[in-house]
C-alpha cells in the first residue's frame, strides 16, 4: 500500500453539500451538509454516531429513499453531474452498473424465495441483457469465485437461508460486483457478523478495491474496522461533516472535539495490542484502570456462583447447546464469557437463572443448588441475583414507566409498599445518573444508554450478591458504552458483587474483567485469568478470536493484515 499511488488516482465520486430532508408529519433534516470524495481504488469510511445520516446519504445517491425525502446537493460521478434530487433516469441507469450498494443485514437483503444464483444472474442480466443462459451462468460462477465462495456450482442453487451470514454477505458483494461498478457503497457490511467472519469480509473488500480499482465507501461505527480497512475517514455528526482526513493522521491527530471524543471512547487494550506473547500483566493492571476494581477475594472462600459441567438443551430430545461448562466466581470478581455469536453465552446465563433446560451438571449459588430447591427458598435466592439482559430495549416493559420498572422487584419481591418503592426507585435513578424527572417516562422516550442504566438500577435495587450482565453494551455506540462501563465500575466498587459478564467485545473484556471463559460451539475452550488467556491463548480458536477483534489502531491492523496476507501466500 503506497500513499503516493492514491494521491494521483482519479476522482470517481464527488459529493458536495448533500442535504436530505424528510417531510411528513414532522420534518427531519437527516443530512444537512455533507461532502466527501472517493477516488479510484480507495476505501473511504464514514463514521459517526447512530442516526447521524450515514445510511441516508448513501441511499440518496442511488435514489433509494422514500417519496417524502427531499434530496439536494452537487454530486459528480466520474466528473459528470448527477441529479439526485428526484428519481431521474440517470440515477436508475447507474444503479448496479456504476454504483452498487451492499446492505447492512445480509439475510434481510436477499429475496428469500429465489436461489442466490438467480439473484446474481438478475444483476448480470441488467448489465448485459443480451447474454445467453450459459454466459450468465458462467459469469455467476466467476463472481462467486471472486468473492471466494467454495463450490460455486452447488452454492448458486441454494436459497439465502441455507447459507451462513458470511456467505450471504459475500453473495451480496457478488451481486454488487456483477455490473463491474466504479463505486461500492457498503452500509455497515459487517455489523451483523462475527468477528472472525467480519475479518474475511473486510479483507475481501480491501482486495477488491486494490485489485479492481473500485472506490469503496464503507459506513461503520466500529473504529476497529475503520482502522483496519480505510484509507480515508469522514466523520459525520448530526447530518453534517465534522472532519475528514487520511486514516493514520486522523487517528493520531484528531482535529475536532467530537472526533477526539469518539476515539477516546474506544477501550484502551494493551493486552490485545501489538504482538502476542509479551508478558506484562502489571502494565495491564495500570493501563486498564482495573486497579479501581477491588482485588478478588481469597480463593478458599465459598464461590458466589459455581457452575460445574453444565449442559443445556432448549427442547427435549434436541442436541445440547452447551456442553459441560465449568467456572466459578468469587466475591468482587468479574468473570467474562466470550465467544462468537451463537456459541452459547446467553444460554448459560439463562440456565443459571433457571430459564433454560439444564441437562447435566450443577449450578450453585452460595454453595446451594438453588434451582432444585422448593419454590419459596428458590425465590429467596433469586432475590440475591441481579440481572441485566442483552438488549436495553427488550429488557424494559414498554408499558411501564421507568420508576415502575425499577420499583417492580421491590414491590413484588420484597413487598415494599408502593410509595416507598417508588421513592427508592428515584434514589436508584440518582445513583445511575438519571434525572428524577425521567421517572414517569416510558422506555421508548429515552435513549439506549439511559435504558441500559435503568436496567442497571433495577438490577441493583435488591443489592445483589451476584450480578449477571448479558452483553450490556452490545447495542450501544462507543460513547454511550463508555459511560455505561464507567458506571459499572463505580457500582462494583460500591456494592462489591460478584459478576458474570457476557460480551463479545474483547477489548472491553480485557479492560474490565478478572477471569475469562472462552466458548466455542457451547464448549469451554479456555478458562483462566484474563491476562494469561489473552496473552497466551492455548487454543487456535482463542487465538483466532483474539486476533480477529479489530483494534482501533491503524498501525496494528495494517501489521496484522500484512501477516495474514503473508500466511495466505505462504
Amino acid at each position, binding site marked *: 500500500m503506497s500513499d503516493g499511488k492514491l494521491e494521483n488516482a482519479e476522482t470517481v465520486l464527488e459529493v458536495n453539500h448533500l*442535504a436530505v*430532508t424528510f*417531510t411528513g408529519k414532522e*420534518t427531519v*433534516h437527516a443530512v444537512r451538509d455533507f461532502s466527501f470524495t472517493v477516488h479510484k481504488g480507495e476505501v473511504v469510511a464514514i463514521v459517526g454516531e*447512530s*442516526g447521524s445520516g450515514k445510511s441516508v446519504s448513501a441511499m440518496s445517491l442511488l*435514489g*433509494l*429513499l*422514500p*417519496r*417524502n*425525502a*427531499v434530496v*439536494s446537493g452537487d454530486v459528480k460521478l466520474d466528473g459528470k453531474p448527477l441529479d439526485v*434530487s*428526484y*428519481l*431521474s433516469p440517470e440515477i*436508475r441507469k447507474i444503479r448496479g452498473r456504476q454504483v452498487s450498494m451492499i446492505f447492512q443485514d445480509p439475510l434481510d437483503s436477499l429475496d428469500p424465495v429465489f436461489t442466490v444464483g438467480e439473484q446474481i444472474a438478475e444483476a448480470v442480466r441488467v448489465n448485459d441483457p443480451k447474454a445467453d443462459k450459459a454466459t450468465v451462468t458462467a459469469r455467476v460462477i466467476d463472481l462467486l469465485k471472486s468473492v471466494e465462495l467454495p463450490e460455486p456450482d452447488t452454492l448458486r442453487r441454494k436459497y439465502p437461508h441455507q447459507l451462513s451470514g458470511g456467505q450471504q454477505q459475500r453473495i451480496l458483494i457478488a451481486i454488487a460486483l456483477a455490473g463491474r461498478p466504479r463505486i461500492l457503497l457498503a452500509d455497515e457490511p459487517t455489523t451483523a457478523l462475527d468477528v472472525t467472519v467480519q475479518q474475511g469480509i473486510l479483507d475481501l473488500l480491501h482486495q477488491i478495491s486494490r485489485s479492481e480499482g473500485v472506490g469503496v465507501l464503507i459506513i461503520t461505527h466500529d473504529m476497529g474496522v475503520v482502522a483496519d480497512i480505510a484509507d480515508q475517514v469522514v466523520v459525520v455528526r448530526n447530518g453534517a461533516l465534522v472532519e475528514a482526513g487520511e486514516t493514520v493522521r486522523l487517528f493520531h491527530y484528531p482535529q475536532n472535539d467530537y472526533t477526539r471524543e469518539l476515539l477516546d471512547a474506544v477501550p484502551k487494550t494493551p493486552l490485545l495490542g501489538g504482538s502476542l506473547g509479551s508478558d506484562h500483566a502489571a502494565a495491564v493492571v495500570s493501563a486498564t484502570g482495573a486497579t479501581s476494581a477491588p482485588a478478588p477475594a481469597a480463593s478458599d472462600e465459598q464461590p458466589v456462583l459455581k457452575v460445574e459441567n453444565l449442559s443445556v438443551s432448549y427442547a427435549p430430545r434436541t442436541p445440547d447447546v452447551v456442553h459441560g461448562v465449568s467456572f466459578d466466581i468469587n466475591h468482587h470478581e468479574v468473570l467474562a464469557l466470550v465467544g462468537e455469536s451463537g456459541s452459547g453465552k446467553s444460554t448459560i446465563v*439463562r440456565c443459571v*437463572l*433457571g*430459564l433454560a433446560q439444564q441437562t447435566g451438571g450443577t449450578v450453585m449459588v452460595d454453595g446451594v443448588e438453588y434451582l432444585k430447591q422448593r419454590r419459596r427458598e*428458590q*425465590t429467596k435466592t*433469586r*432475590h440475591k*441475583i441481579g*440481572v441485566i*439482559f*442483552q*438488549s436495553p*430495549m*427488550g*429488557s*424494559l*416493559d*414498554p*408499558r411501564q414507566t421507568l420508576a415502575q*420498572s425499577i420499583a*417492580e*422487584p421491590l414491590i*413484588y*419481591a420484597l413487598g415494599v409498599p408502593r410509595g416507598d418503592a417508588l421513592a427508592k426507585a428515584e434514589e436508584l435513578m440518582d445513583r445511575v445518573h438519571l434525572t428524577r424527572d425521567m421517572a414517569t417516562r*416510558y*422506555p*421508548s*422516550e429515552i*435513549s*439506549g444508554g439511559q435504558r441500559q442504566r435503568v436496567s442497571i438500577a*433495577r438490577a441493583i435495587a435488591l443489592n445483589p450478591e451476584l450480578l449477571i450482565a448479558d452483553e450490556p453494551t452490545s*447495542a*450501544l455506540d462507543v460513547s454511550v458504552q463508555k459511560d455505561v462501563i464507567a458506571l459499572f465500575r463505580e457500582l462494583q466498587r460500591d456494592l462489591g458483587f460478584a459478576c458474570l459478564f457476557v460480551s463479545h467485545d474483547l477489548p472491553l473484556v480485557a479492560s474490565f474483567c478478572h477471569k475469562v471463559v472462552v466458548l466455542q460451539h457451547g464448549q469451554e475452550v479456555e478458562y483462566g485469568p484474563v491476562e494469561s488467556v489473552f496473552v497466551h491463548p492455548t487454543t487456535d480458536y482463542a487465538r483466532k478470536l483474539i486476533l480477529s477483534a479489530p483494534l482501533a489502531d491503524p498501525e496494528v491492523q495494517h501489521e496484522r493484515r500484512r501477516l495474514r496476507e503473508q500466511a495466505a501466500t505462504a
Partner: protein
Amino acid sequence: MSEQQSVSKKKAVGFAAAVKTPMFIVGASMVSLIVVLCVFGPLLLPYHPNDIDLKSMEAAPNAAHWLGTDALGRDVLARLLDGGRMSMLVGVAAVFVQVVVGTILGAVAGYAGGWADSFIMRITEIFQCFPFYPIAITLASLLGANIWNVVFIIGFLGWTGLCRLVRAEVLSLRESEFVLYTRALGLPAWHIIIKHLVRNCYPVILVNATLAVTWAVLSEASMSFLGLGVSQPNSSWGNMLSQAQSLRILSSEPWLWVPPGAAIICLVLSVNFIGEALSRAVTPNKPHIRDIDPPSTWKPTAKQTDAVQAGA
C-alpha cells in the same frame, strides 16, 4: 438500535396518534351519534317500541310516525332506536366474551407452553372447526332464543382468532427480556401474565375487538335471518331487517328496510373505521422507496419544498 427505537416509539404513542386521523374521527363521531340516539332517543318518542296498532299497519312515513310502521303497526323509529340498543349490546357483549375468553386462553397457552399450550391449542382448533351456523342453530335451540344466547353463541364461537393472535404475541413476548427478567426474579405467573403479557397485547386485542364488533353485529343480523336472533317482541336491527325479507317489502315499503339496513351499515362502517385507524397506528408502515410508486412528476412537490425551506 435507532430503528428499533423509532418503531417502539410509534407503538407507545400509536393510539394517541390514531385518535387524530380523519378515519378515527369520522368513525368515532358516527358511533357516538348512534349511541346517543339509541340511548336517549327512545325517551323522547311518544311510542313504546312494542306498542301494537292494528289500525295502522305498514303505514308509510307520516307526521305521526316519522319512519312509518311495521306489520303490526309498531312505530319503526321507536323500534329502530330501541333495536339499536340490542344490536350494540350484542356487539359489545359478544366481543367482551370473545376478548375475555380469547385473551385468557391465549395468554395462558402462550405463557405456560408445554402440554397446557397443546391442550388449549387443540381446544382452539376444535372450536375453529365448528361450522358456525349449524352449531349456532343447535346452541340456540339448546339455550332458547334470546339476546343473551346470541351473545353467548357469537362469543363462544368467535374467540379462537383472538386466542391465536394473543398466543402468538405472548409467545414472542415471553422470550423478550423484560419477561425473562420477571421470571428470573421469581415473580408469580399471574403477575407476569396480567401485568406484562396481557398489557402488551392491548394493541392486538383492541384492533381485533373492533373487528369482532363488526362480526357480531352482522352475525346477529344473519342469525335473525335464520330465526335465531333477538326474538319478538324485542327489536334489533337484524330482526327488523330480516322481517323485511320479502321482495314485496323491498320494492314497495322501503321504510321497513332502509332504516335498519342503513343503521347496520353506518355502525359497521364506523366501527371498521375506528379499527382501521387503530391498526394503522399500531402497525406503522415502513414507507416504500420511491421506485415502488414513483410520483408522477418525479419532482418534489411544492409543499415538500416549502417544508424543507421552512425547516432549513
